[in-house]
């Protein structure tokens, strides 16, 4: 589903942030990307989400080569992803309902169909009662959950979250991890960058980055067992 082959990324005026990274993520996996800050986790996620292009190597998303896509096709590729940003990137001049509505509007979904989906997404993250609230009035954990609701409302096949539990206390963090597990249960591929190793579940795949290089690549229990069944 997502294949990295000898991918390197260099920003103008800096050293390589990623060096020769290769791996493959199966559909329906839960993958943790770990490493120290500056190891290239965020860059890796941006390459997956097609918000950055690799300097060399190939990134395949569902058999599409991201580097070879026309610029006009990029937005349509991005709609396959639900993104949860490190800094939430909520719109603070709009209420919760309107924040979650944005991805649907981009897809041209409005009216009662949109309303149903928005309420379902808010319900899933436990914010149904706060439709009209402005994001600034929410707690950190609620803002994070709102960001997740916005990421899943358009029913993406891949959910990408950058440090989703970064600034949260343990209670909130496990609540949010629980949400991600629930999404994985319904077949969504989940990719999470984190420095919080304690939250990693033993069944999940782990990509460990160190100074731009792939240090360790533990495949998910699912994938490993699938390989032993069919040698």
């Amino acid at each position, binding site marked *: 589903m997502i294949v990295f082959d000898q991918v390197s990324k260099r920003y103008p005026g800096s050293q390589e942030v990623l060096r020769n990274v290769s791996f493959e993520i199966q559909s329906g996996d839960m993958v943790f990307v770990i490493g120290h800050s500056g190891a290239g986790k965020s860059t890796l996620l941006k390459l997956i989400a097609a918000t950055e292009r690799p300097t060399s190597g190939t990134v395949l998303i569902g058999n599409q080569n991201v580097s070879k896509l026309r610029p006009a096709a990029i937005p349509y590729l991005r709609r396959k992803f639900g993104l949860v940003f490190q800094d939430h*990137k909520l719109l603070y001049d709009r209420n919760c309902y309107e924040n979650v509505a944005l991805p649907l509007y981009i897809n041209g979904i409005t009216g009662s169909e949109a309303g149903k989906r928005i309420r379902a997404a808010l319900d899933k993250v436990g914010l149904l009662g706060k439709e009209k609230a402005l994001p600034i009035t929410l707690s950190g954990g609620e803002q994070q959950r709102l960001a997740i609701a916005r990421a899943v409302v358009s029913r993406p096949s891949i959910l990408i979250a950058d440090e989703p539990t970064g600034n949260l206390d343990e209670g909130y963090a496990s609540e949010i991890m629980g949400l991600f597990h629930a999404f994985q249960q319904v077949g969504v591929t989940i990719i999470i960058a984190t420095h919080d190793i304690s939250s990693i579940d033993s069944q999940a795949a782990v990509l460990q980055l160190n100074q731009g290089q792939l240090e360790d690549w533990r495949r998910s229990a699912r994938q490993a067992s699938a390989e032993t069944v069919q040698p």
Partner: protein
Amino acid sequence: MRQWLSLHAQAMRHVIARLRKNMLATFMMWCVMGITLSLPGVLYIAIDNLNRVAGSVQSEPQISLFLKLDIQPDAIADIKKRLSDHAEVAGYRFVSKQDAWEELKKNSGLGSISDLEQNPLPDAFFIQPKGSNPEAIEGLQHELQQWPGVELAQLDATWIKRLYAVLELGRKAVLILAVLLGFALLAIIGNTIRLQVVTQLDEIEVSKLIGATDNFIRRPFLYAGTFYGLGGGLAALVFLLGITLLFNSSTAEIARLYSSDFNLHFLDFFSSLSLIFIAALLGWIGSYTAVNRSLRRLGK
């Protein structure tokens, strides 16, 4: 198709809500555009009305028809009849050579003329053509020149040519002014939209990250620019109407004193419509260039 329509309806709702939230700024914008557009508009109305005046003056352009010295009286009667029947002749006056001779002797004050043995003057017709189109009058002059018994058909049309030349100059001035102010409007609208883009940079960035196309991002700004243009065009019409009415109250007085029914005419329906259309188009172009510049700067 339905999706496309709903995307547009949604962008429009969004923009109208935003314009209403900034009602004062929107109103100011309309006024600025209206004033800018009404400058060439006033000049246009002035030229248009001068043109009407020129068209309504019928007495002045005149063709002098001098007949051959040896013409017979029945030939003169024939010309008279042809002139009365001619479709492009509004009226004519016949001055016989005797009358002209008497007149000349009376008015010239030159005693020596009376000493001439022979009357040197020809019989003449003075003709008022219908309409004031210089080409038509010139055509009439050429036609009359061909008639038998006519020595010379002289057209006294220099003043009307001058008037038309001046009107032509005026029209060019309107055009130049309109083009210059059009650029000014583009700059004004472009700048306003650019500022709006800056205030909504977060929204644009997030939208792009989660898969909005450039068209999706552009759409509300294009609507905003077009609305500014439409409102500006309407404001200009209102201003022009006000100016015309104000002028008419005093021109009517002057016209009454000159016992004429002259009255300033407002823009006709087609011109009003094109004014609004051009204003909206300028709004669209201004916002399109502004948003595109910002999108390119955002890159990626």
